[in-house]
């Protein structure tokens, strides 16, 4: 009920295409070396011409302007950590994608492509020259990453893509690469632009949806979406049965790039606010909103210490306007480019961390204007982190008890159906964390597994429990474990759980011996990782 209602933008202004066109990149002038000038005659040493000549689907304007390729193959080897065995990584796997070359010769791909990447290389579409690359900036919530070739001369032979925004009804071209380096162009139409969930569950940003019949190619994990020869977005999800593609759109890319241009990267800000619609006339009369036509959303919850609370907005308030834009009963404002769009876009994508928006609130018949300073909520600020990527899981093996902090990433070890298969109280704690831990600012230490040892006789069946205390010390993060272990009572460590059994004991003097056995018999390289 607190999820923002989403609606189709149906109204469209003719002029918006031009107004929302390609945007200048702040990084473009400062970072691009003179030798990498994107203009000029073809200098490709192989003499290869870009593919469009052979591809009937390519728009004529692309043929004219593109003497060099504007896309590059990106080969990534990913190796995520195994949260069930937090000392080890899973088997590596490889993905191939097509990245978009930007004017500063960096390469734009989706964040998901490079999540937990061990190795990234760029490959010329034709000729197949390869060069190692590194991630310069990545935002997993916006699902975007900026890559940089280690050898800048490699990028010399690429053209850059400019940006454009899409409009519902537009014909978009999706670019794939044939083995020959030819660009395979598939056309589809942009059907919807709306705020929707991104792969990171906690993140909701603008998405373009397009209907397009893509053919299978081995390098299609991320694909550029082009309109009139300019980049309109990157495909992040594609459903082969419904032929529908979800695209990270230009406004999100634009926000990401502007932010990336001024270090440190801040990310997409939030208001720390949950709301519900006010459509029901009975409810509107109850909260004193008169008339059936006016808008406003009902604030159901504010994050403690979050921007909305700091602004003085309370649950029960009705938000009527943001920066002078009227908010309708479903939480949408009238966006100049996309029509009705969730206020999430207005606050999170049209503004940056630290920006202040003016919020008009109705409270007990009074109209109040409040300044709300938006801030990003980093994953570390969650009690159960929504994702742990590019970072090894923290863990502590205590005589065979495997202790970790509860996170959504750990829960996802139970598979796509984790919310049904993972231990129910873990799912409950994760899902209702803001309700259960109003003060935030803590983690939940759990027993995630058990490696039977001489110390754990009788405890073999225990796992998936919340650990409350060790030796009487409350655990509010994994780092508290070694602190608590410094003070055993009469040679015993007392470990207290939420649930049954409420406590167990370990022999403190035998821990070192058990540690040696665990490392040797279970071949565990390290018994703890706290950073």
């Amino acid at each position, binding site marked *: 009920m607190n999820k923002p209602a989403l609606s189709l933008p149906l109204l469209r202004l003719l002029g918006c295409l031009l107004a929302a066109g390609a945007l200048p990149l702040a990084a473009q002038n400062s970072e691009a070396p003179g030798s990498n000038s994107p203009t000029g005659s073809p200098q490709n040493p192989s003499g290869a011409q870009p593919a469009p000549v052979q591809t009937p689907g390519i728009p004529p304007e692309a043929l004219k302007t593109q003497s060099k390729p504007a896309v590059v193959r990106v080969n990534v080897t990913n190796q995520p950590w195994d949260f069930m065995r937090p000392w080890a990584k899973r088997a590596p796997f490889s993905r191939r994608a097509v990245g978009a070359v930007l004017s500063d010769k960096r390469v734009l791909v989706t964040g998901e492509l490079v999540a937990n990447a061990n190795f990234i290389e760029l490959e010329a579409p034709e000729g197949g020259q390869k060069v190692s690359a590194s991630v310069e900036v990545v935002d997993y919530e916006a699902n975007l990453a900026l890559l940089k070739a280690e050898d800048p001369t490699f990028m010399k032979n690429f053209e850059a893509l400019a940006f454009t925004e899409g409009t519902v009804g537009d014909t978009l071209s999706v670019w794939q690469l044939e083995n020959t380096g030819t660009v395979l162009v598939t056309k589809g139409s942009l059907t919807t632009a709306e705020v929707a969930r991104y792969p990171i569950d906690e993140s909701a940003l603008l998405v373009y949806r397009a209907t397009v019949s893509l053919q299978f190619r081995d390098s299609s994990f991320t694909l550029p979406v082009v309109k009139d020869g300019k980049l309109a977005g990157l495909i992040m999800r594609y459903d082969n049965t419904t032929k529908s593609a979800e695209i990270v759109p230009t406004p999100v890319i634009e926000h990401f790039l502007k932010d990336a241009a001024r270090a440190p990267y801040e990310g997409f800000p939030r208001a720390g606010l*949950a709301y519900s619609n006010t*459509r029901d006339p009975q*409810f509107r009369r109850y909260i004193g909103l008169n008339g059936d036509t006016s808008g406003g959303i009902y604030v159901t919850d504010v994050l403690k210490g979050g921007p909305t609370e700091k602004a003085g907005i309370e649950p029960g308030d009705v938000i009527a306007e943001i920066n002078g834009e009227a908010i309708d009963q479903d939480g949408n404002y009238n966006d100049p480019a996309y029509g009705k769009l969730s206020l999430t876009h207005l606050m999170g994508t049209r503004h940056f961390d630290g920006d202040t928006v003016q919020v008009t609130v109705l409270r007990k018949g009074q109209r109040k204007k409040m300044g709300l300073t938006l801030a990003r909520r980093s994953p570390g600020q969650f009690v159960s982190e929504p994702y742990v990527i590019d970072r090894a899981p923290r863990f502590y093996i205590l005589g065979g008890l495997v202790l970790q902090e509860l996170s959504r990433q750990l829960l996802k070890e139970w598979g796509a159906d984790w919310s049904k298969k993972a231990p129910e109280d873990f799912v409950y704690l994760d899902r209702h964390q803001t309700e259960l831990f109003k003060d935030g600012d803590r983690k939940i230490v759990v027993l995630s597994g058990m490696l039977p040892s001489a110390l754990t006789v009788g405890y073999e069946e225990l796992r998936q429990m919340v650990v409350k205390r060790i030796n009487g010390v409350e655990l509010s993060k994994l780092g508290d474990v070694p602190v608590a272990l410094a003070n055993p009572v009469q040679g*015993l460590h007392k470990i207290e759980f939420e649930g049954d059994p409420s406590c*167990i004991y370990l022999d403190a003097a035998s821990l070192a011996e058990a540690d040696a056995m665990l490392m040797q018999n279970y071949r565990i390289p390290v018994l703890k990782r706290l950073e």
Partner: protein
Amino acid sequence: MIMRVPQLLIALALTTASAWAQPNEVRKSLARITNTAQVPNYRIPWLPGQTGGGSGTGWVVEKERLLTNAHVVSNARFLTVEKENDPKKYIATVEHIAHDCDLALLKVDDPSFFKDTKPLPLGALPEIESTVSVFGYPIGGDRLSVTRGIVSRVDFRTYSHSLLDSHLCIQIDAAINPGNSGGPVLQDSKVVGVAFQGYSGDVAQNVGYMIPTPVIQRFLQDIADGRYDRYMDLSLNTFNLLNPAHRRALNLPDDGRGVVVSSVQSAGVCAGVLKEGDVILAIDGHPVFSDGMVELDGERVLMAEVAERKFLGDSVRFSVLREGKEQSLTVKFDRAWPYTLQANTYEQQPDYVLFGGLLFQPLSRNLTGAYQFANPRIGYFFDAFVSKELYKTHPSVIILSSILPDPINTYLGDFKEGIVDEVNGKKINALKDLAEAFEEKTEFYVLKFVGVGRPLVLERAAVEAARSRIKRRYNVLEEQNISASF
């Protein structure tokens, strides 16, 4: 003992019986039972439910009474029993039914049914690997069927009829099929069990289960006073004391004795007597070993088996080590465990309140079976109801289970599957609280749901205007049924 387990077991809704000594003698005491049942529909709770049929086996257990499984005669509207070599169908009624141990006792209206029948005597627990015969009327034909097998193991197992209760159970490898349910399993002309459940063939082979005689005898003894009081339950959890460090922490010698009390249900009989952290050394004089077992009649069984043999009004004596001192504590079984929402229930019409097209129902296993709720909070309330003592704040968990669409509730779809917390500021602990709140004459009814920031608001005028319209449109016979006390 009440516990939860996976639902792999299937009840054998036809019947069986066996006695390999003199089948001709045994068959005189057997009956085929045909049940016309009516199963309540939790999605349309004001309707009486659909009628269906089933058959099983029963046998003469004592003078003019038939014993069978509870699941053979559950939700019965009309019962008939038949004998071999007698063309007549006799009308029967359920005299006692015990859903927690899947047994029932039937009366036959016409006493002439019992002419020439002889009660089958009860035997003891059969030895492992000894041969038994299963008698009954399973699928595959109309006449008596006998199958033979050996006793594979004696164990504590979940009884799938209630799904909440576990009792002693004997596994045999004789073929047991639907229709065998309720039939006797014989050895040396004595009944050693009642066939009652098995695995479907794609899960396991040659695994059938029977209810052993200690459970049958307990049932017969319980109803001797004319009333079935259910199994008694200690309602506490214990944890093993196998770990040397754990023993040291509790100052226990290394003698392999004692388990530690890890939780005591505040609504159970042990509340106020036993405490978390107590070490149970003996129960009714039987030493408790550190893995939680006791020795009863030469068999090592779970400590809970001692409570299994108790009746309402009985007591159990614990030898407990608390704060270094050994004490003797007595727990009286003055009530059965009150909160059975996690068990399948039978016979009862569903409880509900319908208001403004909103259907409110108390959470139960029957309800979650009828609706596939997507709200994970409901799953949590169901599973943690006892373990986290949620009954203390929500003795009954009232759910907005469905909405009969009407202009009055057209914007309320988001509230579906919510758990009602308060109405107009009053806590809702039972369905009757909700019905009372809706009877108040107030301009707005403001419903708060657990974990939901926005209240659901109904205007009294609108509800009253919609009332007859909703009743007529959806053929609602009654707007509420409230039977449970909480």
